[in-house]
């Protein structure tokens, strides 16, 4: 079956349009299929076989709902730190950020910093309170003393929207990446990812999902460390020499482009003088080349470029990245897999360390790729561009420093990364449906554990089908905005409600629900009106967008906080007063852990 699919994979050469998406979380544009990559496929199947073995092992230990959602609460802080880091080190952040460094140098570092700095704040303000109050989902915390039905519907909506956007971005990225790396067809790649995702989650639950993530994090860190080591070794372990080499390569490339542009200008002038029919065309080509060369000449890879030019956009992006992280359901659920607040804290400490280390590695890898890949004709196409686009910089570097088998290894790691991330997303979506909607809203908390698990397994299956269908449907769409939107919604709908429920006595159900939905809706509407969707996706003319900023978080998150506060303060119903009275007990539990749900329930 697999072989037939693989054999059917031909060479489809399509226009290449490499774009580093928001956070490099998504691949956009069209890609061409690579020839079959045997070492990569061999190693990938070894990984799949191994993780299915783990799933089988986990399935035999997953009996209760607590096992399914939180691996019985028996994950250690160190393991959970690796798993959280793994959720963050997606294939696209590995390839996307190293591609951004390869292309723009310093700007890539700015981007990765934005992704990291949310973690300490999560630790200081959220992590242990979350662990002490919650059981399976972050809705447990948000609805702790509020109206279960309404708040859980809000939380489940926020979760499902974030999961769906993230999942589509990952599926499309997976399809394109696998097409490039393995030579499989797009749709068979998407189906394969969907099927494996459903298998990990339905059979192995959180235990399998966590271990798949941990193993992936380890092999990704090992592979990336090796690459960074080889890059540094090639310059005698001198960062100065590494940067100097990269700057020199960029300078020569810009000069070469200048020369080409000069030649094109001369040709155009000659054509003009002799009245050749293609004179206008040549003149246009020359002007384009000159502009491109001018741009290349101005790029300074050692200094900030155009990434952060508008202060409001910059601050808005910073807010979305920082507080969005604290509202991502698939990240928050990881805090329930550890035994107590102490382990929850340790998780963030290790996660921050691994993620920071990883971003330093991608920085070195990106710079290494400039002179080890960018100067090697083996990795270039006829037009002098990188084969497969700039997103492939790290993959080509793997070949340059480690040969075919290491290239296979890194390709397999990239695929494994996608699998591990989508499994976490699916589990998080499934818990929102089974634990929040089914058990708490429909069954009013009276569902038995077996029925709840059955619902979550069915949901996972449905999510798998939806992910495959949407993954295929969005193949040719520009999905660059999706991860950005997911972060904005997490920061505008999930985070304000979660944060205020833990910190503010005055929060009421009405305030949480109206404010949360206001954040959700305003984030979506503003993104649709922003240039990233209004112009890039809907094809309206440039400059016609109704909302000028790329990221809405500064407005939608503020709106959510203000409305939640306003509605809560004005709410003087008996229910609201009862809810405020319950805050003290919640506060004591959140600070001391008295009454917190412990590890395994059996």
């Amino acid at each position, binding site marked *: 079956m697999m072989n037939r699919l693989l054999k059917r994979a031909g060479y489809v050469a399509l226009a290449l349009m490499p774009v580093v998406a928001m956070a490099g979380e998504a691949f956009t544009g069209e890609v061409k299929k690579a020839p079959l990559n045997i070492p990569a496929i061999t190693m990938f199947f070894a990984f799949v076989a191994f993780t299915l073995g783990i799933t089988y092992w986990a399935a035999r230990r997953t009996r209760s709902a607590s096992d399914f959602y939180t691996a019985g609460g028996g994950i250690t802080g160190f393991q959970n730190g690796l798993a959280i880091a793994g959720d963050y080190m997606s294939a696209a952040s590995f390839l996307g950020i190293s591609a951004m460094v390869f292309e723009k140098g*310093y700007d890539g570092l700015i981007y990765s910093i934005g992704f*990291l700095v949310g973690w300490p704040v999560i630790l200081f303000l959220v992590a242990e309170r979350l662990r002490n109050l919650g059981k399976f989902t972050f809705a447990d915390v948000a609805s702790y003393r509020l109206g279960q039905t309404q708040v859980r519907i809000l939380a489940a909506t926020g979760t499902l929207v974030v999961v769906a956007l993230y999942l589509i971005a990952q599926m499309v990225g997976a399809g394109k990446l696998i097409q490039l790396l393995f030579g499989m067809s797009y749709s068979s790649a998407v189906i394969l990812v969907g099927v494996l995702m459903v298998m990990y989650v339905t059979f192995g639950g959180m235990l399998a999902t966590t271990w798949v993530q941990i193993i992936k994090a380890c092999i990704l860190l090992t592979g990336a460390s090796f690459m960074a080591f080889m890059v540094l070794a090639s310059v005698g372990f001198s960062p100065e020499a590494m940067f100097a080499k990269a700057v020199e390569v960029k300078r020569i490339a810009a000069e070469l482009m200048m020369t080409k542009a000069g030649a094109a200008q001369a040709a155009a002038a000659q054509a003009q003088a002799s009245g050749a029919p293609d004179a206008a065309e040549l003149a246009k080509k020359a002007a384009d080349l000159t502009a491109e060369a001018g741009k290349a000449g101005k790029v300074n890879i050692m200094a900030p470029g155009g990434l952060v030019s508008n202060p409001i956009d910059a601050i808005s992006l910073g807010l979305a990245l920082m507080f969005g992280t604290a509202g991502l359901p698939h990240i928050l659920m990881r805090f329930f897999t550890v035994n107590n607040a102490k382990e929850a*804290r340790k998780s963030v400490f290790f996660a921050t360390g691994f993620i920071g280390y990883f971003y330093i590695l991608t920085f070195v890898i990106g710079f290494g790729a400039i002179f080890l890949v960018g100067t090697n004709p083996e990795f270039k196409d006829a037009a002098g561009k990188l084969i497969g686009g700039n997103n492939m910089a790290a993959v080509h570097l793997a070949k340059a420093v480690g040969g075919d088998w290491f290239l296979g290894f890194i390709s397999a790691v990239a695929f494994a990364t996608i699998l591990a991330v989508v499994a976490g997303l699916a589990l998080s979506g499934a818990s929102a449906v089974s634990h929040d909607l089914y058990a708490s809203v429909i069954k009013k908390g009276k569902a038995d554990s077996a029925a709840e698990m059955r619902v979550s397994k069915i949901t996972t299956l449905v999510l798998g089908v939806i992910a495959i269908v949407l993954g295929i449907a969005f193949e040719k769409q520009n999905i660059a905005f999706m991860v950005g939107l997911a972060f904005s919604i997490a920061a505008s709908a999930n985070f304000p409600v979660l944060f205020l429920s833990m910190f503010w006595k005055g929060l009421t159900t009405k305030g949480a629900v109206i404010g949360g939905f206001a954040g959700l809706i305003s984030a979506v509407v503003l993104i649709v009106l922003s240039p990233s969707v209004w112009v890039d996706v809907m094809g309206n003319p440039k400059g016609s967008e109704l909302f000028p900023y790329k990221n809405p978080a500064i407005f939608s998150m503020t709106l959510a906080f203000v409305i939640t506060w306003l509605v809560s303060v004005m709410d003087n119903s008996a229910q609201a007063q009862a809810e405020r009275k319950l805050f003290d007990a919640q506060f004591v539990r959140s*600070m001391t852990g008295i009454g917190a749900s412990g590890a395994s329930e059996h």
Partner: protein
Amino acid sequence: MNEDVLARVQKNPKFAELVSKKTSFGWMLSIVMLAIYYGFILILAFNPQSLGTSLSGGVITVGIPVGLFIIISAFLLTGVYVRKANTEFDQLTQEIVEEAKQ
């Protein structure tokens, strides 16, 4: 949690101590992190050239150590918090929990 336990915890001066220590320490470190990050963002927005100047005559610019410093400071700040929380705060919490049981 029953009413008795709740009342005992709230009356315990150690609880007030825990709350004030933990809250102020958490907010203080958060503000440090936010100040570092948004300070960086503001430099990027208003004075990006300053990060592009050479550090000591070579190609390495001021921006490189600054970027590394932010990454490392995030890690160190979490380390500082975890160290203090897992010893001092947890010790205090343990005592409060024990005393609430009696």
